[in-house]
């Protein structure tokens, strides 16, 4: 079965630094990969999507990379702010639509 691994330990960084979160997966190659943000007591919020034929995608301070050889995605937040503190979920879709599998998420703390 498909397995997704995200850093189980929380990531603590200083404001202004770049946060890098990792998502590793096993078995089949996904059609695309998504990153979501989740705040306590709220549902996940979509951030970025990257497809299997893309290497990198950017949106403002966010950058996602996708290495299908390593079976890994990296999620970067540059110039991090305390407001970026949240849990970040990696999600993979293996069927090209609608079969989304989520990782357990990585908790990010950005200190002022």
């Amino acid at each position: 079965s498909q397995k997704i691994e995200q850093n189980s330990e929380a990531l603590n960084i200083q404001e202004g630094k770049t946060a890098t979160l990792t998502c590793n997966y096993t078995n089949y190659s996904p059609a695309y990969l998504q990153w979501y943000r989740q705040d306590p007591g709220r549902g996940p919020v979509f951030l970025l999507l990257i497809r299997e034929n893309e290497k990198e995608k950017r949106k403002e301070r966010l950058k996602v990379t996708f290495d299908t050889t390593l079976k890994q995605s990296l999620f970067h937040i540059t110039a991090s702010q305390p407001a970026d503190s949240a849990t970040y979920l990696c999600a993979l879709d293996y069927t090209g639509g609608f079969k989304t599998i989520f990782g357990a998420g990585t908790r990010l703390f950005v200190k002022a």
Partner: protein
Amino acid sequence: EAGVVQSPRYKIIEKKQPVAFWCNPISGHNTLYWYRQNLGQGPELLIRYENEEAVDDSQLPKDRFSAERLKGVDSTLKIQPAELGDSAVYLCASSSGLAGEQETQYFGPGTRLLVL
């Protein structure tokens, strides 16, 4: 534009009691999902609807869980009877189904269920 609406936000019941959750997706979204999220874990898909048809319910424990989306708009998820292990957050999400946009899911705030 209103987001995905879920109710209730919180529910506390005793084991063996029934419970129901309601979801109203974003207007015009044909695809609706129900997920269960345990503490410290990511959401796990229970069932997905395309309009009123359940197209993926392979992870739904059918002995006690049921769901419906009769008119292809809002949906209800029911548990009967509830067990202690059902305590979790139940999330509803929807997506547009439009080409190039169908992958993005919009989540509601969830219903936090506690079974005593």
